[in-house]
């Protein structure tokens, strides 16, 4: 299940939607808006998330299907928020479920790592003066993805 949404979501409800007696293991990754410093060293007051929605959904679906197959998952849920988010708000949730834990854990990490470098979302810091400041892609995220590419394909 893939969702790109403006509103927040409830972890218990999202879990219930994909839970099944055939699973013994669920791994979650939840990303939230961290109180961060802007490049001019002032505290940010939130973030803005831009998205190319049609492309992001197709990219997320591809990552999801890879994960389902490679790690024999029962389900893989990905929710990503868009728009303006305040400090502490949920940005992204990945839940993977499987019979045994090692599969769900590894798959969950793969999905969030892939999402960070391969899916059409862009993050901006919201500054006190009302301006937006672009967040740059991290080199370490790209380097980590090279490791996964040896495992997937």
């Amino acid at each position, binding site marked *: 299940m893939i969702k790109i949404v403006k509103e927040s979501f409830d972890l218990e409800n999202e879990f219930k939607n994909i839970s099944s007696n055939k699973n013994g293991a669920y791994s979650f990754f939840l*990303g939230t808006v961290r109180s961060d410093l802007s490049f001019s060293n002032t505290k940010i007051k939130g973030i803005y*998330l*831009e*998205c*190319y929605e*049609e*492309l*992001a959904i*197709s990219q997320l679906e591809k990552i999801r299907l890879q994960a389902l197959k490679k790690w024999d998952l029962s389900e893989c849920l990905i929710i*990503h928020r868009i728009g303006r988010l305040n400090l502490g708000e949920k*940005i*992204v949730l990945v839940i993977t479920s499987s019979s045994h834990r090692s599969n769900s854990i590894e798959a969950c990490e793969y999905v*969030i790592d892939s*999402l*960070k*470098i*391969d*899916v*059409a*979302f*862009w*993050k901006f810091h919201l500054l006190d003066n009302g301006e*937006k400041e*672009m*967040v*740059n*892609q991290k080199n370490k995220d790209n380097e980590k993805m090279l490791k996964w590419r040896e495992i997937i394909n």
Partner: protein
Amino acid sequence: MNITIKYFSWIRVKLKKSHDLIELDKAISFKELKNNLISKDPIFQEIFKDDSVKYFLNLNELNDNDRILNNGDVLAFLPPVTGG
């Protein structure tokens, strides 16, 4: 024929618009389109010089400058993504 171009992140901010609808008399290649855009606005020179920008044609990554663009095509210019 019409081609839609979608702009994201710093490209959208720099161009001060999220998309363009380009009207053309005849089918042209991606390379010819790039030259067209540069002749209209030199900002495109900067965009096309940036190796980190990716191009998507109808939701698939486009790496072939000689690809002929067709009526109704949707092209997107994507800086490195930073979601999650």
